[in-house]
């Protein structure tokens, strides 16, 4: 019998992933063993340190990474230039979202629900429906903070975030479909839970979580079904093996395209591409805003990173056969996002539709199986992610006594009350609309010109029309903020704590920088292609 040789592992290449996942495990232990009042500071410190260390490790490795990338962990992980870029994107966006999640000053105690025990101890806390008060406070393990303060949030959200982030990093680097599926579940399950954890409007939040979970489970099932079919076709789940099998064989294509169709349903669902978008508005609205920011920015990166890799590596050679279907999907997504966004009266839902439209634009970039398409997509993801995080950060600041004021009418005349906030929001909305000198324009330009040079002119036309329609609803918010009378019982603008301030500032600065001087980042995004 020949001895088994374990596959070689390039630890330097996968170190960032290992650090994040390791920190997630440690985070679970912290949750289990630390007394309650120490958890919040410990979890925040751990998560921040983990992400920063992972980022530094990534930076050090990327400094002299091989241009062709490496395939490691027994060919399950491809750490190539796009992977490195996406990892970097995920880490910085994750960092920004983490700051929003950790904030406890905007919403006293944090945006996430406190445990039932603590809510009871703090008396009739907001949001708890029938929590009986009068429990003897001496028997309750009082959380961090002075008595009388709102109870602090459940700190489980930090391990959730880290696991989801680790899952996303594995998702974009997965070199075979099974790894991709495992990563998909690792990233999805924490997200389902995070959706249901809002401190306010509990029912809306829980409903969102259930919807997301059920539809997500369906999408995962489709994905798995697709994997099975593709395995039947190629005899392997490795992406490059599927590509090899598709070239120069007389095998029936039914398995290949049936498999692709089902596989892509699962992926498009995660990227909230229409018509698989139905969960997006409800979930964006119901989830706690920091979690929405995390989902909107990072899930999008992960999903489109994976879509780009699958289409590029496994299905690049057969693109003429499947492109027609994806054209239809992209058009549907852009039109749905732009047209339905027009009618929204809730800001978070509006941003959800905007994300659906943006998903359509992104699909243009991923469909262009060229170097320009890949780098355009990567750049777009980074730009969009930062803008979105900042937008949600701003949304979390405008509040009434009942929590966030997300109804559009409540934003009327906000510029008179808080010119700075209105100015920043205007800038971000212009970026989402793709006005020049913001990252939105550069990103759209990169993706559209890549799509155009790969023969997708009609799609680009639709994309521009959709952008124009979408610009209308962004501008409506601007008009409302500047040109309307303030309602008498309008919301107040909270002064953000350090965490939220940093997250918003980061988003705004990057949005501006990528609009004015995008060269450096574009060069990174275009440093190399996918390796199979």
């Amino acid at each position, binding site marked *: 019998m020949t001895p088994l040789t374990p596959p070689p592992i390039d630890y330097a290449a996968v170190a960032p992933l290992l650090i994040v996942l390791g920190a997630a495990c440690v985070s679970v232990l912290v949750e289990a063993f630390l007394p309650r009042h120490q958890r919040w500071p410990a979890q925040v410190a751990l998560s921040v340190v983990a992400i920063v260390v992972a980022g530094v490790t990534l930076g050090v490795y990327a400094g002299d990474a091989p241009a062709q990338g490496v395939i490691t962990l027994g060919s399950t992980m491809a750490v190539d230039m796009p992977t490195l870029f996406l990892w970097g994107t995920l880490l910085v966006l994750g960092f920004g979202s983490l700051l929003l999640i950790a904030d406890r000053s905007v919403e006293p105690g944090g945006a996430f629900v406190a445990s039932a025990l603590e809510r009871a101890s703090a008396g009739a806390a907001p949001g*708890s429906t029938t929590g009986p008060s009068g429990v003897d406070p001496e028997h309750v393990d009082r959380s961090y903070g002075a008595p009388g303060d709102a109870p602090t949030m459940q700190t489980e959200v930090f391990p959730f975030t880290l696991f989801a982030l680790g899952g996303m990093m594995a998702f974009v680097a997965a070199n075979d479909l099974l790894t991709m599926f495992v990563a998909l579940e690792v990233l999805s399950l924490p997200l389902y839970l995070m959706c249901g954890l809002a401190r306010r409007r509990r029912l809306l939040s829980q409903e969102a979580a259930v919807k997301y979970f059920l539809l997500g489970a369906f999408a995962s099932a489709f994905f798995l079904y697709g994997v099975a079919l593709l395995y039947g076709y190629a005899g392997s789940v490795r992406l490059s093996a599927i590509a090899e099998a598709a070239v120069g064989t007389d095998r029936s294509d039914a398995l290949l*395209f049936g498999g692709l169709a089902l596989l892509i349903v699962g992926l498009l669902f995660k990227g909230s591409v229409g018509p698989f978008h139905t969960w997006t508005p409800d979930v964006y609205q119901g989830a706690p805003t920091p979690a929405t920011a995390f989902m909107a920015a990072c899930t999008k990166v992960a999903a489109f990173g994976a879509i780009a890799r699958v289409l590029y590596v496994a299905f690049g050679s057969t693109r003429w056969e499947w492109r027609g279907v994806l054209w239809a999907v992209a058009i549907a997504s852009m039109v749905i996002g732009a047209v339905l966004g027009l009618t929204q009266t809730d800001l978070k839902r509006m941003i959800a539709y905007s994300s659906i439209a943006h998903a359509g634009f992104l699909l243009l970039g991923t469909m262009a199986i060229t170097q320009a398409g890949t780098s355009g997509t990567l750049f777009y993801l980074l730009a969009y992610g930062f803008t979105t995080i900042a937008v949600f950060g701003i949304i979390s600041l405008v509040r009434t006594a009942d929590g966030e004021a997300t109804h559009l009418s409540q934003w009327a005349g906000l510029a008179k009350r808080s010119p700075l906030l209105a100015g920043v929001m205007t800038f971000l909305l212009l970026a989402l609309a793709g*006005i020049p000198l913001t990252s939105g324009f*550069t990103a759209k330009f990169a993706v559209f010109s890549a799509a155009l040079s790969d023969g997708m002119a009609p799609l680009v036309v639709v994309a521009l029309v959709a952008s124009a329609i979408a610009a209308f609803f962004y501008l409506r918010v601007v008009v409302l903020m500047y040109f309307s009378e303030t309602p008498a019982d309008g919301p107040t603008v909270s002064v953000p704590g350090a965490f939220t301030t940093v997250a918003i500032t980061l988003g705004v600065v990057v949005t501006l920088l990528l609009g004015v*001087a*995008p060269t450096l980042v574009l060069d990174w995004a275009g440093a190399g292609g996918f390796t199979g």
Partner: protein
Amino acid sequence: MLALVVAHLVVAALLPLVSRRSRRAAFGVAAVLPAATLVWGLANLPAVLGPGPAPSETHVWASALHLEFGFRLDALGVVMIVLVGGLGALILAYSAWYFGKDSRDAPRNSALLLAFAGAMLGLVLADDLLTLYLFWELTSIASFLLVGQGGLHRANRRAAVQALLVTVMGGLAMLLGIVIVGESAGTYRISEIVAAAQQGAGPAGGLAATGIVLILIGALTKSAQFPFHPWLPGAMAAPTPVSAYLHAASMVKAGVVLVGRLSPAFADRSYWWVPIAVLGLVTMLVGGWRALHETDLKRLLAFGTVSQLGFLMVLFGSGDRIGEIAALTMLLAHGLFKAPLFMVVGIVDKVTGTREVGALSGLGRRLPGLAAAATLAAASMAGIPFLLGFLGKEAAFEAFVHDGDWVLALGLLLGSIFTVAYSARFLWGAFATKAGVEATEPRPVVPGLSVPTWIAAFTGLVLGCVPPLTDALARNYAAAYPAEDAVAADYHLALWHGLSLPLLFSAVALIVGATLHLQRARVTGLHTALRHPLSAQRGYEVTVGGIERFAVWVTGRIQAGSLPVYLGVLLLTVLVLPGLALVFGGTLPATVPGYGSLMQLPLGLVIVACAAALTRVRRRFTAVLLVGAIGYAIGGLFVVDGGPDLALAQFLVETLTMVAFVFVLRRLPAHFDAGPRVGRGIQLRKAALATVAGVFVAVAAVVLSGARQEPPAVSGEFVARAPEAGADNVIAAILVDFRALDTVGEITVLLIAAAGTASLVLATRHDKKGKSGRVESGGGTPEHEEEIAG
């Protein structure tokens, strides 16, 4: 040049600091930069007119995307600098007095006007299509903010949004066109595209043609050409200095300038010059006709501007040497007469409190200086000799008469007649003494308002009397176009070309126009008779309203917040996309075995029956049992098909989940929420969709497994290698040897799940012991358990 543009924007950003001290000083500071721009432009005149290449500069922006800032100063640029810089400085000075010392609007307007001047400067100097697009959109945004003002009035808001929508939509169409043209020409440099096209190497083919037409759409929307023109009269809701600057002198010229820049390359293509000539002429006539009936002096001028823009469009699109000379002259002339006319309206409005034709009377006698300035400007507009407008109009008639282009020549003649008529109407409306109207008592006019007006109007006279100044610029610009004969090559602007047809045209225009004005009662009657419900404004409203209604309808349909609907959309998409492919592309395998062994039949039936029953169940506990039954039956199928290892795992997982479920159910109500009653039709639809989806999955499994051509290689290998592992039984070999690690993993997962279940058991006990009221939802009480267990 970039430095100059950036300086505008930076100073504009800092201007609020100045206006905090003095609002008037803010306008003064703002006026310095445009004035400096004018000086800079005129200082570069020798370089522009000289034989060498035009001054230009390039700054890299994003090399990876081939984005760069490219600027170039040519004759067209100099003329536009006179309008943007020269008139800009005058209008800013005028604004200082227009807005008053304590106006709350002054700080915003001073900063925005200067920022706009910077963007506009960038636009007219841009030699790179993408640079041009960037500044194009910036001017749209500045215009939006300037028209919207404080947003206090509904008219302002609506006009601002309409102006923005129309120009930004046009801008986006243009962006697409720019990218197409840029990609097919291989460069975004306007000068390079023009040079290549003139050597016959311009962008060609259907795609490039589409791109060129898209660029043209952008130009037409920005310059308020028919049928996009209604936004311009609407934008008159802005303060008068803003209208004078943006909507007369500079911004609306952007489209014309773009056509002027690209015409040397595309003027010989029919899809370029035909739309320009037709729409330009229609715009000129529609605008002129509407101007004849407006009673608001400002709207009268606005329609006049629409008309003149149409005229300019026709001239710039002509691609003819003389026509282009006329174009550049008219461009300059229009800025120099329209801006003072607007300023006059502003003054009239200021000193009398109205700008309605019917309410003003005898103002000419009270304010003779102002009336003289207005007459000078209006005369230039009407094309009276010794004024710049006359030079331009003569050249325009000459261009089309010389070519024998009678349709256009007569069309322009008709347009000019209208122009004369509404020029007269303007003067009459503002200054004449009208019978039956009480004489208006104006307040005195401050010099701060009248001096800039005079300067602008007087410049038109000077340039009109000294043609060579303008002639040099115009000929320089027109040199880019081929001259078809010696007459065209030698054409110069002059006050006297001898007795010729164009002179006759001018005379006819003046006489008929004056007659038209004298017969204004009849003309108005005709206008009323011709009134019709179709208008471009109505078209805009219907479009915008229609999109809103459509969006509401679609949202109500598919985003109802209902999970079944969402799932339905998901399933439907899967059915439509791969489903159709399966129906059309898939082939059933030649032999489909009915069943492998008899045992499969009852198991299959159990699964189907349980699944069907699940949809009708009301009790949670029953539902869990049925789900469990399906799981066990599938496990049974694994056994029958020879996969006892899989079956084992399946049974274990099913058992564990059932146990976990039961513990969870203790805390939930016994029955499912009944929810609102749904109609029979909806139920049937759901059932049909579910059935079709199920059938699709089943058929797909059969068809796709039939598509497999090679037998699974791994199974044979397992059997062959089993003895090697020292096992008689293949299954045992697989479980403990080939896939030993998997087995360990499975066992671990099972253990963890079992531990979780056990902890649930313990937790429930704890609840019972503790105070019963602590658990919020559901029971945990004995009665509750009884209810669950039935």
